[in-house]
């Protein structure tokens, strides 16, 4: 059985899994936006802070004042349009752009699952997820029974990358041989009923959770792919994500992953859901319009799409390994840490005390971070070097505008990683105001006096 690319690309499969995925995705996203709005996080995370931490190269992406609410509204509306399959291509492009813009506004709120949603919505731009059971097909009076098989496999591939890479990152000495950081996190869940005072306090349980988490991540895509283990695997997916959802404040992530895993099921399963949904819709709307069901959805630019998506997946496969280009401990410097499916790998806390010095007179004073940052921003800033650098520049500029001269910005900072004692983090003799953000290794981060082996 030799794999033939041409034959593979010309294979077709029922459109149902893709349709259900579109509906599930739209629903999750619509709910996420409403939830975010209802918790007033638009204000507390994007409007209240006086200063925002930007991504390198995307410094121009900033909250838009009160228009930020409009941005969220557009994002939620486009999610609704995706859900019902109305003007799908425009809707999913709008969703991708607005959601990604929101995420780029402040890296304080970076979460791997937000990044997952961003790239997943990018992928969905290229897939015919409105080819049937959508407003688009209703209006055009045309729907398609089959879509190219690769368009469904592309989603499976992305979901598999997330799991497998998350599993690979857990193969490190802290996670496996010290059960860190679960050893810190689980005992603090002492107030859970039944298991809080018992299981959560057990040493063996911390190790069991660490190892099974790693094995789960590495194997679950394969168990989902293989028909005989699929239902078992889905049971595991539900259990694992609901359990971690109870343990940790991870918001929508468990539900996004549970819904995503449905893509692995066979067409018959999705078909049943669609029939069920149709029955409900017919009950309410009595739709009479005849829709012509065509056999195969034809891509207009299949070749270009395949090339774009191949590049997309190549980037996805290599980006998480960029950390290997940096000389120092990844967990310590976090150079190449984001966008790599490193989920809940570290318990890191820091303290950063900034000192503004006049280089001529050597007078100095300390900064009260609460004057400029929210508690969440201060927490994130205190252990991530790129945050510290950006904040140092902000402070320098701020005090310059207040009339200070010959400004130097120093920081005395300490970080504790995975239960180790706190140790000095940034070289306190380096004037950060003179340092520039770049992809180069940051020389002013002090060495990590320990070793974490592994990927």
């Amino acid at each position: 059985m030799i794999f033939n690319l041409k034959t593979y690309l010309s294979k077709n499969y029922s459109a149902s899994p893709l349709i259900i995925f579109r509906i599930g995705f739209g629903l999750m996203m619509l709910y996420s936006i409403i939830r975010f709005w209802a918790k007033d996080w638009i204000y507390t995370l994007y409007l209240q802070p006086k200063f925002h931490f930007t991504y390198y190269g995307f410094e121009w992406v900033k909250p838009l004042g009160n228009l930020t609410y409009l941005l969220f509204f557009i994002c939620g509306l486009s999610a609704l349009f995706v859900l019902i399959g109305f003007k799908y291509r425009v809707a999913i492009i709008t969703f991708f752009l607005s959601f990604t813009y929101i995420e780029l506004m402040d890296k304080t709120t970076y979460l791997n699952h937000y990044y997952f949603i961003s790239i997943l919505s990018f992928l969905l731009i290229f897939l015919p997820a409105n080819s049937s059971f959508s407003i688009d097909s209703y209006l055009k009076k045309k729907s398609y029974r089959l879509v190219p098989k690769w368009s469904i496999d592309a989603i499976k591939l992305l979901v598999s990358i997330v799991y497998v890479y998350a599993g690979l990152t857990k193969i490190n000495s802290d996670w496996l041989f010290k059960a860190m950081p679960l050893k810190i996190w689980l005992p603090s869940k002492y107030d859970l009923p039944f298991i809080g005072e018992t299981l959560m306090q057990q040493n063996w349980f911390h190790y069991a959770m660490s190892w099974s988490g790693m094995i789960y991540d590495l194997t679950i895509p394969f168990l989902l792919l293989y028909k005989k283990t699929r239902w078992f695997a889905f049971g595991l997916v539900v259990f694992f994500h609901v359990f971690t959802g109870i343990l940790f404040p991870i918001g929508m992530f468990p539900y996004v992953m549970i819904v995503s895993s449905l893509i692995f099921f066979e067409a018959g399963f999705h078909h049943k859901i669609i029939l069920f949904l149709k029955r409900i819709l017919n009950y309410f709307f009595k739709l009479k319009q005849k829709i012509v069901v065509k056999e195969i959805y034809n891509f207009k630019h299949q070749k270009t799409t395949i090339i774009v998506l191949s590049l997309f997946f190549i980037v996805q496969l290599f980006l998480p390994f960029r950390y290997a280009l940096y000389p120092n401990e990844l967990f310590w410097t976090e150079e190449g840490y984001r966008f790599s499916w490193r989920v809940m790998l570290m318990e890191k806390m820091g303290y950063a005390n900034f000192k503004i010095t006049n280089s001529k007179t050597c007078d100095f004073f300390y900064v009260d971070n609460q004057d400029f940052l929210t508690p969440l921003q201060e927490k994130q800033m205190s252990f991530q070097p790129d945050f510290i650098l950006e904040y140092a520049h902000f402070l320098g500029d701020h005090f310059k505008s207040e009339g200070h001269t010959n400004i130097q910005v120093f920081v005395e900072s300490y970080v504790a990683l995975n239960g180790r004692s706190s140790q000095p983090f940034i070289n306190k003799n380096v004037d950060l105001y003179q340092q520039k953000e770049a992809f180069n290794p940051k020389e002013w981060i002090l060495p990590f006096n320990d070793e974490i082996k592994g990927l």
Partner: protein
Amino acid sequence: MLKNISLLIIVLIIVISCSKEDDTSDLGNNDDFNRKAMLSNIADNIIIPSYQDLNTKLGVLVSTKDDFIADPNTENLSALRTSWLNAYKSWQFVEMFNIGKAEEISYHFQMNIYPTNDDDIKSNIAIGGADLEHPNNNDAVGFPALDYMLYGTGNTDFDILNKYTIDPESENYKFYLSDLVVQMKSLTEIILNDWTSSYRDVFINSTSNTATSGFNQFVNDYIYYYEKGLRANKIGIPAGNFSSNPLPNKVEALYNKESSKILALDALNAIQNLFNGKSYNTNSLDSSFSDYLNYLNKSDLVTLINNKLDLAREKINLLDDDFSMQINEDNTKMTNAYDALQTVVVLLKVDMLQAFNISVDYVDADGD
């Protein structure tokens, strides 16, 4: 598929073999830590006795104030000053407990906001009958206002006494002095009664690990007080650590001129006693943060925190009784004391909070 199964089996074998090897580095936490017992000790042996003591000392302050107003003479002034200092020292042991009723009625803002604003005080005296609870008057009431009333209204004791005797506004002075003391006493009674009647039970049962639970707030407040109330207000701000120049007029007990060191040392003792669970009245030790850290296998951290607090105490002991004098003559000793206090901030805020795995105050957002 066969590959996957064999991979699974290999990994499982590794799990079993490795988990056996690696048991030496960590001892299991097999028995559970009793948080309720810890909070009970803190409430029953530290917080409530501290408030009771403060309440008693304020009672003495009220009666010496009555004596002084009835007969403003040197002897009564001296007695009043002594009872003011005793109550102020006692206050240092409750200042970190800004929770429950105290937080609700802004108790702390009405007891020890310094530097006090003598212009506000003077105008309050002139008008008479000022609303002492008004936020605008936070810097014109409490211990710092009394500091001004007892030491700052004149250059000599003779001048000060004159304010209460022959000054055209002497009745107003007496009235304001009396109001200040009565207000402090009644506020403290409210807090103490709340603790003894209902809040004690709320507090000791509030052991859950959420941002709003009693224990988490308590730890956060404790660290906040150490960092802000003690480190910054008492030492750092006057020493000029947060400004271009030193600010000697921002010391605690500015007009008294001989007590800022005693008060700072008491505040440091209060911090350390709570950390070690030392009873306010008997010096016996019981469950507190140090025991919790020991339970979490962090006894090194307990030793380190205690050593660094001792070191900070040594540095403060080198200072003049009057911090403003110290700042004007040799501010380096002040900044040295600040640096010594600073080292403990890191241990409390980073190492201890990480060990307790307590969320930083009210951070509300999803995590990863």
